[in-house]
């Protein structure tokens, strides 16, 4: 059973099961769509964190730019959504290439600080050029995609649209992670000096990981803008970067489905708790400290532990075996 949990096919099956289960357990199609959208963005964040060892505090840049790019293209060109989405992916990849190329000039915590500063830079860009982005109000009236000549205005109809793209992109991310390229990223994560000494162009690989992550995150941002009908300024704020990172770490860095789990946990807990107590983020803050202290492998780690217990611990691995290694200290 514990071995089973390491198989990528099982992760994909879990993602597919999530798509099927959400409509059964949730009343709101909007919340269900949000879970898939943020799950996708968190998985893209995990390609950097879990697979490349890069803790990016700038994922909100790509998410927000994806929202704006989709909104502007849909509103000003009249292209259909299926033509807009590839363009959004290109915008995300191009921006992520630039941000990644600049940020990986520094390592460790400096890298993290740079990504956070870049997320502020793009926030102020969006805030300053308000005739393009709508500034504080956001870019309004972003339309839903059209299928068969009609917009998908029903929440569950749009959920189906999101679900198809979610599964396709999740599978694509898995293919990337399993490819020779993805294995090389793991080698860079585990020992950058060694990967570089073997002859891998480490920086080019890191930038490529950024580009892929940026493209997927931008697509998630585009889907989000079409969901809520606005490309809001908050999508490019520090807060979005922080949320995506928190979802990823809560889920656990071990595999891409863990990130979907993290997003689902965050959004469902937020939905339930915020109805009872608007200051639920206080509990989240305490939870993050607890995760840092006691639960470093996140929710996925809990599942693995439960599975190991269920099989009498026979195939259980030591908890640190696959944890992300210590970042190289400057």
């Amino acid at each position, binding site marked *: 059973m514990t071995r089973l949990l390491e198989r990528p096919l099982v992760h994909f099956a879990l993602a597919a099961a999530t798509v099927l289960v959400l409509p059964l357990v949730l009343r709101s199609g909007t919340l269900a769509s949000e879970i898939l959208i943020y799950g996708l963005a968190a998985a893209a964040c995990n390609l950097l964190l879990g697979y490349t060892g890069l803790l990016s505090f700038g994922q909100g840049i790509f998410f927000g730019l994806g929202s704006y790019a989709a909104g502007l293209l849909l509103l000003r060109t009249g292209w259909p959504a299926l033509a807009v989405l590839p363009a959004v992916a290109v915008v995300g990849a191009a921006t992520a290439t630039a941000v990644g190329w600049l940020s990986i000039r520094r390592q460790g915590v400096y890298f993290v600080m740079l990504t956070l500063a870049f997320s502020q830079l793009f926030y102020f860009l969006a805030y300053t050029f308000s005739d393009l982005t709508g500034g504080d109000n956001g870019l309004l009236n972003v339309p839903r995609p059209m299928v068969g000549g009609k917009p998908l205005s029903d929440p569950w109809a749009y959920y189906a649209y999101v679900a198809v793209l979610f599964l396709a992109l999740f599978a694509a991310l898995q293919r990337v992670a399993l490819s020779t390229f993805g294995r090389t990223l793991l080698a860079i994560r585990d020992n950058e000096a060694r990967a570089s000494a073997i002859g891998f162009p480490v920086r080019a690989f890191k930038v490529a990981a950024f580009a892929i992550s940026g493209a997927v995150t931008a697509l998630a941002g585009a889907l989000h803008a079409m969901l809520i009908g606005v490309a809001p300024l908050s999508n490019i704020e520090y807060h979005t970067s922080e949320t995506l990172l928190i979802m990823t770490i809560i889920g656990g860095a071990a595999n891409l489905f863990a990130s979907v789990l993290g997003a689902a946990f965050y959004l469902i807990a937020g939905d339930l708790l915020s109805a009872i107590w608007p200051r639920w983020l206080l509990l989240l803050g305490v939870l993050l400290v607890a995760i*840092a202290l006691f639960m470093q492998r996140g929710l996925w780690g809990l599942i693995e532990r439960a599975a190991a217990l269920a099989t009498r611990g026979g195939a259980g691995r030591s908890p640190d075996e696959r944890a992300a290694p210590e970042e190289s200290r400057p």
Partner: protein
Amino acid sequence: MTYLFQILNGIGLGMLYFLLAVGLSVIFGLLQFVNFAHGAFYMLGAYLAYEMVGRGVSFWLALPLACLAVAALAALTEAALLRRIYAQAHTFHILATVGLALAVQEIVIIVWGPIGGNLPPPDSLSGVVILGDFVYPEYRLFVIALTAILAAGLWWLLEGTRLGAIVRAGSESPEDMALLGYDTRRINTAVFGLGAGLAGLAGALAAPIRGVDPFMSVEALSVAFVVVVIGGMGSYVGALAAGIAVGVAQSLMTTLWPEGARLMIYLGMAAVIVMRPRGLFGRA
């Protein structure tokens, strides 16, 4: 003349940025610990001063009290919580301090509400100084003077005293310090308190200029990061020079292109990273 005014404003702003960044930098230098709750300590300093003055405490008493209270709170947090995760990867340092910052932000909203407020400068400094043909708020001059004295005192503390020597030696090799018989845990707690106390003081000093609000912490944290990235982490001179440069640039831009003033400091940071990845004063 407006330029002179803005440069003076920028120096005051920059000195506050310096206080923030040097605290972050000292903590990182000794503990190899990046403190994402640094902005939260800044915000707490501002709110504590705001609360005390609101209850009739003199500003002159509120200022040191806010600084000391934040320092004590931070030292307590370090001793009870943060020291348990030093041995772990940076990811978990960041996660724990992000969680802490989030909790502080929500507590601030619970106690003081989501709107924020204003803290008037003390009566003795509420006037203006007339310099030639332009007027300048007394409080801002006071901020420049006080932070300049603090900067000099801090320089002396870090470069001229035994504590400073211990901190610098501990940054190079904590193992050696422990072998020499120093209680590194107590030193860590003290330095963490010092760094956070500087952030709290910067917040209390900034409150009469910018007011208080529950989201001031994020802006402060990212500005401190920019200063540290430009100046080079672990460099006192770098933090001072970069802090003032960022403050003056932001202030001058306020007259030239108000909407883009804060954008410019991040563009400046990007330019420095392209030209000098180590920062202007960073050690390789």
